[in-house]
């Protein structure tokens, strides 16, 4: 048994998660159906049974339109809704206005395609939804995820193999960094800092007094740095001077902060602004664990020594902690993992020794004899019943106008990884994608007298940059696409830092820009 239908929304899977892309292409060849929703004609669109080329920032409307068809055509899973969920009736009432025709006006997707997609998705035995930042990097990101959950629950496509709602994690250990409490509101395993019992557990284990108040998110930190509340920022292995929305603002914040410490493998754009730079070991030079997009905890192993006097991040942190006066005496990463697992129920059954013996394990894995959990929500949702949430379409925070008539959306390509700290320094890769090529439609190019390979100036309300362009039918008229790989054309100078009210994710996927040809 495998997924017989994939619904991929806001994920250019074959370029950003290539090996998952291989599996999807294979499944399609073996007969699976594919629905793709994306503003760009991505490679997977060529394989799709239905391609929904929606306007950037209209995901909620599209998903509501599909749910409207599912409900009004009676394609929903009555048993699943009755036994496993609550709130369906409210959502069923609220989506009545999202008829395919109404949604077509908002999204630009023909009503018939919306119907076809809804029928295909609801008619599947096992339908898997895959999404990435094309869903979340919007001011409406959280509610779009609710809309996805509504669709999956209404059709009973949750809590069983080869189905579900699958956010593909972008970075090697973004799952682990979240699991480990690299978030302002939670300790490891999503245990809230606000809970007195949880805090007590960690206070006893760590021998310290802990702060009950949730901390600042990354965007809030930058604001706090600008107004002087945050004096010191410690950055481990991140490059906010290129990745943050509205870079000008972020760079000002990084300059304003009194003391900036950066721990990294290269002198990144952020490290170059630091007061102290600490050289770290790269992945092949250290031991530890990463967690992949399936919650699979896997061992990484030291293959070679780190260059010069560079050290593993954990060793740097331990020595710093000792200098501050904390009595840390970890002999290695296995000991650190063991302490973490002893405080984290979902990791309690995992140890380095077990990973060495058995290979990767998927959490929750509550005891040493537990085999791990390949898929979630098989009996119950985390909160018990699955909750339908009413989602209303809210337009992107910034709309086009006569001055800024184009929508800029951003992402990655196959060759580079994020700010390219690693891939720009890998010869064979860099040679294949040495510079930014902003994607511009034939129509916009013709209108502005731009040819493939020309240099253009792009301006938003926040900043401007110059970049070479690739004229292509991947983007529709009115839309420009850029990656955030190239420091020479740092797209986040342009992007909007308005955030989703819940997740605080900035709207990196939609901002208004104008474009003009640069005459050399």
């Amino acid at each position, binding site marked *: 048994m495998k997924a017989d239908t994939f619904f991929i929304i806001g994920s250019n899977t074959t370029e950003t998660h*290539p*090996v998952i892309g291989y599996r999807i*292409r294979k499944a399609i060849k073996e007969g699976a159906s594919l629905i793709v929703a994306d503003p760009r004609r991505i490679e997977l669109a060529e394989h799709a049974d239905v391609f929904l080329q929606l306007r950037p920032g209209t995901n909620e409307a599209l998903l509501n339109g599909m749910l409207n068809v599912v409900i009004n055509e009676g394609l929903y899973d009555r048993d699943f809704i009755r036994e496993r969920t609550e709130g369906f009736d409210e959502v069923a009432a609220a989506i009545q206005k999202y008829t395919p025709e109404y949604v077509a006006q908002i999204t630009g997707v023909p009503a018939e395609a919306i119907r076809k997609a809804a029928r295909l998705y609801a008619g599947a035995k096992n339908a898997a939804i895959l999404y990435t930042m094309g869903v979340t990097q919007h001011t409406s990101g959280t509610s779009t995820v609710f809309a996805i959950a509504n669709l999956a629950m209404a059709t009973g496509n949750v809590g069983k193999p080869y189905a579900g709602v699958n956010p*593909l994690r972008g970075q*090697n250990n*973004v799952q*682990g*960094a*979240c699991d480990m409490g*690299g*978030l*302002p509101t939670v*300790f490891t395993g999503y245990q809230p800092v606000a809970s007195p019992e949880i805090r007590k557990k960690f206070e006893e284990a760590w021998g310290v007094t802990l*702060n009950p108040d949730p*901390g*600042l*998110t*990354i*965007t809030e930190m930058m604001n706090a740095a600008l107004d002087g509340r*945050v004096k*010191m*920022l*410690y950055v481990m*292995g*991140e490059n906010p001077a290129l*990745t*943050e*929305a509205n870079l000008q603002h972020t760079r000002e914040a990084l300059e304003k902060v009194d003391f900036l410490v950066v721990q990294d493998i290269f*002198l990144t754009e952020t490290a170059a602004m630091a007061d*102290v730079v600490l*050289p*770290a070991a790269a992945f*092949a030079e250290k031991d530890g664990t990463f967690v992949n*997009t399936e919650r699979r905890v*896997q061992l*990484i*192993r030291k*293959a*070679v020594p780190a260059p*010069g006097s560079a050290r*593993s991040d*954990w060793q740097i*942190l*331990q020595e*710093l*902690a000792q*200098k*501050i006066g*904390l009595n840390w005496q970890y002999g290695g990463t296995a000991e650190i*993992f063991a302490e*973490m697992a002893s405080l984290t129920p979902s990791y309690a059954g995992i140890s380095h020794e077990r990973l060495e013996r058995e*290979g*990767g394990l998927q959490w929750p894995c509550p005891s040493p004899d537990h085999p791990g959990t390949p898929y979630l929500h098989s009996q119950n949702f985390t909160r018990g019943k699955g909750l339908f949430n009413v989602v209303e379409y809210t337009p992107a925070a910034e709309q086009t106008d006569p001055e800024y008539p184009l929508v800029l959306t951003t992402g990655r390509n196959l*060759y580079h*990884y994020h700010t390219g700290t*690693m891939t720009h320094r890998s010869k*064979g890769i860099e040679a*294949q994608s040495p510079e930014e090529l902003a994607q511009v439609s034939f129509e916009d190019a013709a209108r502005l007298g731009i040819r493939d390979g020309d240099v253009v100036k792009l301006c938003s309300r926040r900043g401007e940059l110059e970049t070479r362009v690739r004229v292509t039918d991947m983007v529709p008229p009115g839309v420009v696409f850029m990656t955030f790989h190239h420091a020479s054309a740092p797209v986040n100078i342009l992007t909007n830092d308005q955030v989703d009210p819940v*997740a605080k994710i900035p709207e*990196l996927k939609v901002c208004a820009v104008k474009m003009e040809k640069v005459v050399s």
Partner: protein
Amino acid sequence: MATVKVNINGMDVQAEEGMTIYEVAQSLGIYIPTLCYHPDLSTFGGCRVCMVEANGEEVTACRAPIKDGMVIKTDTENVSQMRLINVELILTNHDQDCQSCARNNNCKLQEVSAFVGVTPERMQRLRRVITNEVKDISNPIFQRDFAKCIVCGICVRTCEEINGIAAIDFGFRGYKTTISTLGDKPILESKCESCGECVERCPTGALVVKGQVIPEREVKTVCAYCGVGCGLILGVRGSRVVSVRGDRENPVNNGHLCIKGRYGFDFLNHPERLKTPLVRKGGVLTEASWEEALSLVAAKIKEYRDNFGPDALAALASARCTNEDNYLLQKLFRSLGTNNIDHCARL
């Protein structure tokens, strides 16, 4: 699955219905030479070196299914002759710079040639005029050397069946048959994604990584790029990573990799790697000892915390670092009294 009885080289054995002769032989540890066969791919039956005798007829072992009562002989005189001639015909068009070939000692064609018993006398007789095929060196990572291509089609099937992009196929006809991109353009101008799956499977030196260095030892680990978490096997020579191959035992990727995972490791040895702590002095980042750098950071942390309270401190964890690194980072800052810890999961 029903079992059937077959006799192979005089031994009576049981095997599962649906298996090919090649698979049965493999399961018994009987070597049958192959060039176009690969266990990951569909069968092609094109190289004709896996010929065996089954019920008195010569068949390709890789494609012929076993039947109940089948009598199989893998080493008759006929079979040996056919294999030898087929290999010789392949070799007549093949470059013979084995010593300097990147595939030397790891070459299926060498292995099969030795097995079928190619002799220099016969090779002299068959040797064709030197080929004038031009190498395709357009891809910065790997090269295509048509003088070493045996047109087995493993690369074609790999691209179609493993990656799914199908950037290459057989082109032209008969004697001129070659592996071609759409329009026979250089590979770099095709839709090839440089994943290297074909390079991994090429049985000869036709597809090799440019400047390949053979490792002394290998270390199993996990890729540090995206969230798929593919298993990697790093090849190490001295204290440098010189190669990467996919970990076939890892259920996440079954050995498959993309361009970044397989070829994106040069950065490890890049001269710009940070090798020593740096402390800003007079506006300039200046090399410093660990003692100096960490003492300064510790002093500043205490100073800001004591003067402005713990929430004057903030830390960014990393989606790129390990669990252990991240656990200690949040433990450190939470122990100092602040929950100002976040990372770019939001980005």
